């Protein structure tokens, strides 16, 4: 009997040996989305396929949040990552949260992080992007 021990933070994060993100891609225009869809906001199509999103990318924008909603640990780096043509929202993790270590255009790669374990012993796994020196982005 296999017991589930991990659950992804969001359902577009796929765990396992090779954690990656997936997107819902419109089969008619190619627009990609991370949420459950009713239709395509670009072309109004209703047919989607699941596609894998590149795990390496370039940081195209960021902020270092120093003051956040209650319960959100600060500081943290929030940013947008261009993963081979698909823009992804995510935190920049595993580096110092300051403008010496985080730069526009830096190469990053997907990394997972634990959000903790619930009463059933299930660990929630989240994702972020960490600096990837030398990564081919």
């Amino acid at each position, binding site marked *: 009997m296999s017991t589930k021990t991990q659950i992804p933070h969001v359902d577009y994060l796929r765990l396992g040996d090779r954690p990656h993100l997936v997107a819902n891609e419109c089969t008619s225009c190619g627009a990609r989305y991370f949420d459950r869809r009713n239709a395509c906001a670009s072309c109004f199509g209703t047919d989607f396929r699941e596609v894998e999103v590149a795990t390496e990318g370039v940081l195209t924008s960021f902020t270092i949040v120093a*003051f956040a909603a209650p319960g959100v640990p600060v500081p943290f780096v929030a940013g947008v990552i261009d993963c081979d043509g698909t823009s992804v929202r995510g*935190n920049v993790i595993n580096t110092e949260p300051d403008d010496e270590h985080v730069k526009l255009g830096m190469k990053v790669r997907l990394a997972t992080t634990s959000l903790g374990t619930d009463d059933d012993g299930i660990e929630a796994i989240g994702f972020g992007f960490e600096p990837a020196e030398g990564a081919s982005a």
Partner: protein
Amino acid sequence: MSEDVFILGINMTKFGKHPDLDIQDLGAQAAMAALADADVSMGDMGILAYGNLVGQTFGQQLQKQIGQTGIPVYNVQNACATGATALRTAIMAIKAGECDMGLAVGVEKLAGAGLLGAGGGGGSKDGHHWEPSGRVGAVATTDGRIGTQQMPGTFAQVGMEYLYKNDYEGTPFELFAKISVKNHKHSTLNPLAAYTKEMSLEQVMGDMMIAYPNTRPMCSANCDGAAAAVVVSAAKLKTLSAEQQRRAVKVSASVLTSDPWQEACQVLPDVNTLTRVAAKEAYEQAGVSPEDLDLVELHDCFATAELVHYDNLQLCEPGGAVDFFESGAPWRDGSTPVNVSGGLQSKGHPISATGIANIWEVCHHLRGEAGDRQIEGAKVGMAHVIGLGSACGVHILESSAA
């Protein structure tokens, strides 16, 4: 072609803290002053368009204080573009021929409201059992874990994205802080601004960091305030006094857009495309070009936002917002004065009032009534607001006096 519409009277309250005034008091103050400014009464109004976002009040409550005449009331909400949407609703009613005069009111009480944002969203509360919920099946809040959903960080990324796309090689923090220095300097001439203190670059950069590169004075100030405008049809205006006709300000363009789909627009809000579309349409409607603008009030909800809108509103060459700013152009003595009111960073941002208050500022100059901060000889001006989600209102105004 539909009929021209004019601003007949307009007013904004002092922005800031009004602990002794409730939402109806503030709305009534602005509405009654706008009616007095127009030299008309509630009895002349054919429509009331009312905006109040956070307070969740209705125009009918305002009517019960200042005049119940049975006219239709449109209660509108459109994020930070609520005021502009109320104004545009009244303008549309006149253009549609349903009435010849209307009142638009925007009011908000926000003093002490703190950080505004979309909230945690998506997931269930952090707790004992991970339970997927929402459109991305989140088992925990996403705000702070998958980016930020708060306004300062969202608009910080908007500004940073512009720098990335345009290969900026300088120091972002200092660049954006200088924009804030400009607006705080401008505010010293505006007695209705919530904050009227000049701030040095060191003071702006040394203040509390909210979301890099935006420190506290680089963020719009939550405060109380109201603004109201009386609009009139061209035909009706011709029947009014010479003084009313002289002070009337022509609404040469009134445009409202939402964000058209773009790659990444559901990842980081795209406040650029809808502003570009609105500006283009406004210039065409008005038959004026960016060079004709004597002043611009644009939506500087954060210092990082002001920069991108120089470009979006065509005040500079595409990609040239940094050069435009560094040339001194948007200072009040520059070629295209931007936010001579002090902008949202110092004047304050009582959400629903903002989209009418910026029209008030432009009208004030076009009428030659702006006192110490008058832009001499101003004939044409633009007012712009963005509501995240998104909505964009752009109005171009021209003085009646030739």
